[in-house]
Structure formats: structure tokens, C-alpha cells
């Protein structure tokens, strides 16, 4: 019997589109979904005689992202031309960074469950310009839309430290949170703001011998799901291929495969990566960028607490569940709002419940951020306190939150107006309890009989009281009264 074990090795090449107002080297607006070739100028369409001028904002965004990815930021960087011919590349060279990327040697931490994080090393991150798009919808001709040409792109390359599709997905989600927290990208995979190209192969141990399968690079991934599934698919495909053919990694044996989202398989695109000679050389039209300590410090000051560390802090400090903490930290607006409410003295768990169950639902319905619902952190904190003190029920709290969002009124006033103040006055409630007991002798008998029926009967009686008070009785107080009467 032969023994075989395998391990998946994945590294990612990631392109993040920066959400600057204008393009990398000209003043054209970065805007998508516009009429083809309507966001272009002589510079980004590569007319004769034009010169690039660096977008400082894009450089700042990139340095900020580099810092968030724990990279060493180069104090001196330059631009290089990367030459290749393709119709969507108007100059037939791309302005990029070759041997002096702006950021190197960093890492990103990804959650791997159980409150633990795994560190994925980052080799480098550099800034470059995007190409346009070739459209193949006009019969035997292709058309080129250059609206995207010149959009700033941050290319991030990781070490092959990932060992599953799930981890790759986790990294993608984490990176999305980070770039959104920092405000450097919209990070929408469907819209191509973040593009992931995994390089994957297997380390196989068969009968004590070690093998490496040929590397595939997967393209055309436009969702987190596709990223994960494509790696899982490749894992099995490569294992099958190895068992069938015994093919192992050789230099230059990297193939390119495209993800077919409908069939959920990868399809061979290029057998052997042509050994492209990009003829890199320093871009003579741009001056090198030198960073001062002061400038770098100013950028560093803009670095906020990153989502994963916030998430873990919410678990540790507030005792929230990992899932809830993840939901709260998915968007910086939600997380910041949560922090603001807690800073007003609200109890974190109840705040979390209110925000995740009502706030996010409303925000989703209204397609806005939780901070744009028209409720203030102070108001929400007050509402949380009211629920906490039993002035209103948890259910009433949710109704009040909704109305706060519609009217902007403060929760105390709304509780009165909506008649949602809980009856906690034992004297008043006792009378109602007595009435209910008097009218339901069977239930009282069951309740006092002990056993299975008892719990159900107590619940029924409690329900009757709540009904009679139109839900405004404090269930805790009612339970105590009931218990006293039935004993």
C-alpha cells in the first residue's frame, strides 16, 4: 500500500485599485460605468508628446496601505517602464515600479478561527497604472475603452504562505476590510477594485519521497467565493494530475488557468508562461520620489487601528462573540459608530445586539452607513441604557431605534409617545397577575403540579399578563410576582 500526503501552497498577486479622484498620471476622473472613452485625455491615451505627472494622493494612499501591511517603506523610489504590446495599453508600456518598490517585507494577519491569527508575509507592494479594457462585442472587430487606463493600482505580492482556499479567502476579506478602513480603495471585487491571482501548487510526499507539482496561476476571479473555490478545485486537479502523469515542477513550467465561474472549474489558458521580456528601464519622464521623515510621520498618523485587531479587542475587552465582533468591524463606519456608542457609557453587548440586529438592517435597507441613519451615538447609548434598566423591553428598544432613525427624536420621548415604557410597578402588576390567576384555574393547577407541564403553564400565565398589558409589563418583575403567588 502506498502512502500519499499533500499540502497546498498558495501565494497571491493582488491588484488594488486606489479610489483617488483622478488618475495616476493625469487629471482625468477615475469613474466607472461611464460612456466608453469619455474619461480620457491626451496623457492617458498615450498621444505623442505627452508626459506623466505623478498623482501625490495615490502615492500617499499606497504608503498608507504599505504601513498597514507592516511593510518597510522605501525612502527613495523611482518609476520604471514595463514594455509589452497590447491594444488596451496605449503607450505599449506601463509605468510601474520594478527594482525599487515603495513598500517591501511586510505581513498581513488573517483570522483562522478560535481567536487566532495567522501571519502571511508580504514580499512587496508597488504602484502602477492600470490598462484600459478590450471589448469583444462588435462582431469581427474588437474595441478598446480607455476610461480605466491610467487608474492607480497598488500591486501586492505575498509569499506562498497560504495553505488553503479558505485562507486565501480570509486574506482577501481581511485586505478588503483594511483598504476600506484606510479609505484607499472601495475594495469591491465584482467591480474589479481588488483582483486576486493565486499561484498554487502542491507539496506531495509519496512513499517518503517529496514532490512539487507545477505551479498554476489562476485568473478571472471576481468574488471571494471564486477565489476560494478555484484554489480548492486546483488542489484536487493537481493531485489527480500528479497521480495520473507524475508531472512535477520544472523551471518555467508555470501555466495560466482561467476560472470558469459557471462550471466552477479552471481552464487552461497558456501552457507555458512565455518568458516575457518586459525590458524594464527607469522612466525618464518622472523624477524619483524621496520621502522625508516628517512626511512619513504625517502619513503614519493617519493609520488607524486595523479591523482584525479591533475585532479581537472586542472579544477580549467586551466579551463579544467572534462572529458579532466580525460583523461590527466589517466596515469602519459601523465599528467607529459602535465605539462612539460605547464611549457614551452604553453596555457593549447590548449595543452590539441593537446595532447588528436593527442598525445594520436599516442601513442595508436605506443603502447607507450606520452612521448615516440619523441617530446619534448619544441617542443610541441612551436607548441601550433604557433597555438595560428595564424601562423598555428589548423588543421595544428595536422599535424605538427604527423610529429614532425616521424622526430624529430622542429615545426617552419616543418611548413615552409610543407608549412603550415598561410597567415595573409591582403593585399595579400584582393586580393584573391576580386577575390572570383567577381566570385560568387549569393553568394554575398545571403550574403548581410540578413536572413537564409546569414550565409551559407558567409561560402561558406570563404571556397572558403581557397580553393584558399590551407587552409593556416588565417580564422580569411579572415572573417574580407569579413565582411568589404560585408557590
Amino acid at each position, binding site marked *: 500500500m502506498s502512502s500519499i500526503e499533500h499540502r497546498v501552497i498558495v501565494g497571491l498577486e493582488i491588484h488594488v485599485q486606489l479610489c483617488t479622484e483622478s488618475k495616476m498620471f493625469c487629471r482625468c476622473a477615475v469613474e466607472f460605468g461611464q460612456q466608453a472613452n469619455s474619461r480620457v485625455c*491626451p496623457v492617458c*491615451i*498615450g*498621444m*505623442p*508628446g*505627452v*508626459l*506623466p*505627472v*505623478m498623482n501625490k494622493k495615490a502615492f500617499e494612499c499606497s504608503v498608507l496601505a504599505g504601513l498597514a501591511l507592516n511593510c518597510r517603506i522605501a525612502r527613495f523610489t523611482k518609476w520604471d*517602464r514595463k*514594455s509589452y*504590446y497590447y*491594444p488596451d495599453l*496605449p*503607450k*505599449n*508600456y506601463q509605468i510601474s515600479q520594478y527594482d525599487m518598490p515603495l513598500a517591501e517585507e511586510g505581513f498581513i494577519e488573517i483570522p483562522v478561527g478560535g481567536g487566532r491569527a495567522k501571519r502571511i508575509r508580504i514580499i512587496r507592494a508597488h504602484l502602477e497604472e492600470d490598462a484600459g479594457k478590450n471589448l469583444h462585442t462588435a462582431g469581427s472587430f*474588437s474595441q*478598446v475603452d480607455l476610461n480605466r487606463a491610467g487608474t492607480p493600482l497598488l500591486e501586492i505580492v505575498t509569499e506562498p504562505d497560504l495553505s488553503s482556499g479558505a485562507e486565501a479567502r480570509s486574506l482577501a476579506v481581511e485586505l478588503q476590510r483594511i483598504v476600506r478602513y484606510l479609505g484607499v480603495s472601495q475594495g469591491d471585487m465584482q467591480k474589479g477594485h481588488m483582483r486576486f491571482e493565486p499561484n498554487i501548487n502542491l507539496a506531495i510526499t509519496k512513499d517518503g519521497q517529496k514532490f512539487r507539482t507545477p505551479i498554476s496561476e489562476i485568473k478571472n476571479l471576481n468574488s471571494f467565493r471564486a477565489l476560494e473555490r478555484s484554489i480548492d478545485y486546483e488542489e484536487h486537479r493537481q493531485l489527480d494530475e500528479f497521480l495520473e502523469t507524475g508531472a512535477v515542477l520544472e523551471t518555467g513550467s508555470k501555466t495560466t488557468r482561467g476560472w470558469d465561474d459557471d462550471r466552477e472549474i479552471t481552464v487552461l489558458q497558456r501552457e507555458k508562461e512565455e518568458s516575457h*521580456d518586459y*525590458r*524594464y*528601464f527607469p522612466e*525618464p*519622464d*518622472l*523624477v524619483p520620489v524621496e520621502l522625508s521623515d516628517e512626511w512619513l510621520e504625517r502619513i503614519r498618523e493617519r493609520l488607524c487601528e486595523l479591523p482584525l485587531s479591533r475585532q479581537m479587542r472586542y472579544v477580549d475587552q467586551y466579551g463579544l462573540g467572534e462572529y458579532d465582533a466580525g460583523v461590527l468591524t466589517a466596515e469602519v463606519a459601523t465599528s467607529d459608530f459602535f465605539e462612539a456608542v460605547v464611549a457614551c457609557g452604553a453596555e457593549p453587548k447590548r449595543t452590539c445586539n441593537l446595532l447588528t440586529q436593527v442598525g445594520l438592517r436599516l442601513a442595508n435597507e436605506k443603502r447607507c452607513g450606520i452612521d448615516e441613519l440619523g441617530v446619534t451615538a448619544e441617542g443610541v447609548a441612551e436607548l441601550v441604557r433604557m433597555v438595560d434598566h428595564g424601562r423598555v423591553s428589548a423588543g421595544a428598544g428595536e422599535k424605538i431605534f427604527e423610529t429614532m432613525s425616521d424622526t430624529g427624536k430622542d429615545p426617552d420621548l419616543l418611548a413615552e409617545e409610543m407608549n412603550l415604557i415598561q410597567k415595573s410597578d409591582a403593585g399595579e402588576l400584582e393586580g393584573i397577575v391576580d386577575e390572570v390567576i383567577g381566570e385560568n384555574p387549569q393553568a394554575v393547577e398545571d403550574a403548581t403540579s410540578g413536572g413537564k407541564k409546569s414550565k409551559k403553564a407558567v409561560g402561558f400565565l406570563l404571556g397572558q399578563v403581557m397580553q393584558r398589558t399590551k407587552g409593556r409589563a416588565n417580564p422580569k418583575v411579572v415572573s417574580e410576582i407569579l413565582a411568589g403567588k404560585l408557590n
Partner: protein
Amino acid sequence: MEDLTAIELRERIARGEITSVAAVESVFSRIAGRDGAVGAYISTDRERAMARAAEVDRRIAAGEEVGFLGGVPVAVKDNMCTEWGATTCGSKILENFHSPYNATVVEKLIAADAIIVGKTNMDEFAMGSSTENSGLKRTVNPWDTCRVPGGSSGGSAAAVAAGFCYAALGSDTGGSIRQPASFCSVVGLKPTYGRVSRYGLVAYGSSLDQIGPLTRTVADAALVMDVIAGHDPADSTSVDEGIAGGCSYLEGIDKGVEKLRIGIVPGLTTGADESVQRAVEAALEVYKSVGAEIVEVEMPHSEYAIAAYYVIATAEASSNLARYDGVHYGYRSTGAEDYVEVYSKSRAEAFGQEVKRRIMLGTYALSSGYYDAYYLKALKVRNLIRGDFAVAFEKCDCIMMPVAPTTAFRIGEKINDPLTMYLSDVYTIAANLAGIPGMSIPCGFDHDNLPIGLQILGPTFSEGKLLRIGRMYEKETDWCRRRPSFAD
């Protein structure tokens, strides 16, 4: 009116003694009479020029201020983008290319109320030293129509020499302003790299290219520099150093330079024609007679300049010219079956021999495995040459030498021998590699009555001083007043 300098003309126009319309008309009548033989212009726009001239005249008549070049007819090399007409770069691939924008220098000429009469012929993409590499037409030397005007700004030099304009812009990547200026007996200034915006100059060797004036006199060159010099936000490599705060090249042009120390490089020009060497020696005597001191300096790395230049310039060119692919604009082959053939056939059909040669050279120099041996080494040579100049300029204010080893050569004489042709730039290339300014001023004629140019090189951003030094010589001699006589 034909013999006026640009400065004289603009003053008379400003005083109302001559109208700009009359000046433009006389220029166009000379073009009509003689440019058929000379071939300086690729395109002219008489209507546009006349309309603008009339506008300048109207403003002067109304007592309004006009710009530095108010009403003066000028020409622009056809590698500078204009919103009107074609910008061809002397190439079939851009023969019908219409730029959607004006080069910064063109905007500045317009703002200074210059009247742009046309676009001048050039070696294709500025690659050449004789203008014979133009893919569109032939230009001859107005002093001898069997001879080349030099290049690549041959059209601009010929236009100024022949009286088809009062000043012209050229571009200089390895000598392309200075050498044709020398061959045509006009003044040509290649400014410091970064002194004049390159935005809208169709790139050849981006780290070497620089726009500058070709004029009848040194003072006229200063006038044009006052219009075109300065930082441009659209060109990251341009700077304001030394001219910020409204400092003028023309002001004080007659002040000269006291205790002028002129550097000469012994042994450097032994390969030059004897008549050229003699003319330069005579020019040095003139300087001595007005108090200059001659000091010897060394240029130990100058012998590597041409090799380094042809690696760096062609490497940059191979990349700069990649965009002419038939996809987005310019010539497209009608015989292409797929997009790769659109590239290969369009380029094969529309680029000339010299352009293809340089693209091949540059592509090779940048290829993986050769980069270190060629491009990187060339950059090292470039730094050494920069260093040579820095050391030399500690001992002198400027360095003088011939512009070219010969006077204008015969059409066809060198066109099939690229290496000999490349040697035409042996004295001019170092300035581009070092980024320093260099000027060519007329300093005599050889036995065939062909013009000889004196080259004056200075440290970076010393254009003001260079112009004053050139002016010192101009005042002592009358070479700049000589005009070619046409056998009409």
C-alpha cells in the same frame, strides 16, 4: 525687412512702422519663391498666420500691449504638437496625425503673440544629422542646395537662414539644434535639460531631448528663451532654477562677462576639418582680444560619449516609439489580419530605415541579459561625463570647440554609412548626456563658402552667461549678418 533680426522686427511692429501682416506676407512670398527649392517646411498655414497677424496689428493700433514676440513670424519643428494642422515628426506613421493639444512651447509662443507660420522638416522622429531621414520630404542647405542643412532640426535651421521666418524652435537630443545651426550659419541654443518644457514635444530620447531656439542672432535667441523657458507643471523634469522672479535673458545681454575664462580641450578636435579648426582658433583670438583667458581642461571620458549616447537614446526611443502601432492613431496597415499584424505591418510599412535601426538597437540594449552590459554601463559613462564637465567648469566659465567636425556635407554622402553619420555629432553629444547647455554661433566659412559654427558649452543653468558670452563675439564680428544668396 528681410534682413531684420527678430528683435528689430518686433520693435518696428510695436512702433507701428511695419505691420505684422506685412511681415507675414513678405515671409510667405519668400516661402512661395524659394521653399520649393529649400524644402524647409512640411506644412504652412498662411490663413491662420495672417489672421493672427491682423489681430496683433489691431491691438497695437488700439494701443494695447503685445507679447515679447508680438507679430514676429516664427517656425516650429514638426515634432512639437499643434492643435491645428498635422504634427508629423517627419514620419509616414504620423503623416496625417492631428494633435488634440498644443505643446507648452507652442502655447508660450502664442501667448507671446508670435505668428507661427509653419512646421519645419526634420529627420524622422529627430533621428539623424542631415534631415535626409525625413519620411516626407527633402530639405537642402540654403547656402548650397547640393548639401544637407544638418539635422535633425534641418528644416528650422534652413527656414531661419533662408528668411522663411525670424526665429524657429528646434529640438536637440544629440546635437540636433546646434549642428544644423552650424551648417546653416544661424545661432542655435540647446538649453539645460529641464530648462524648457518638453510637454508636447514628441519624444525621441526623453532624458536627452530639449527644445531650444534657432535664430539669426544671439540676442534673438535670448528673446526666444525669455518666452519659452521655465517650469511647466505638465513636465515633472522641468525646473525654474535661476529664472524665477521674472529674470530675463535679454536684459543685460550686452554686459558681457568680465575676466572670462574659456576652456579648451587639447587634442579633442584633431579629427576636425582644418578649415573648421582654423575658424574656431580665430574665434578664440577674437575672445582674447576682448580680454578672455584661455585655459586647458580635460574631458577624459569624451571618447565614450557616442557609444553611451547611442545606447541611451535608442533604448528610450524603442520605448517612446512603441505607441505608434496603428491601433489608436496614425498609419495603420490595410493588410493586417489580426492585432499582432496591425502592429508589425503598420510599423514595417511606415517607419523609415534609421528609425527601425534605432528601435532595434534600443530594444536589444534593454533586453534581459544585456541590460547591465549596455544600458547600465552607458548610464555609468554618462555620470563620468557629467563629472568631467563639473571638474572642467571649476577652471573656466565655458568650454569652446567646434560644433561639428565638418561643414555641411553633400546630400547622399553619408546616408548609407550610419556610423560616419553618427560621428557628425561627436562634439555635441556630451552636452546632452551631461544635461548642460550648449550653443552654436556662426564663426566663419570654409573655402566652399560653407558656414562653420563655434560651440560654447556652459554649466547647467548658465544659459544667461552663455548668451552674454556669445553676444561678446557677435558684436566683434559680422558673420551673423551674412545671408545665403539664392541663384533665383
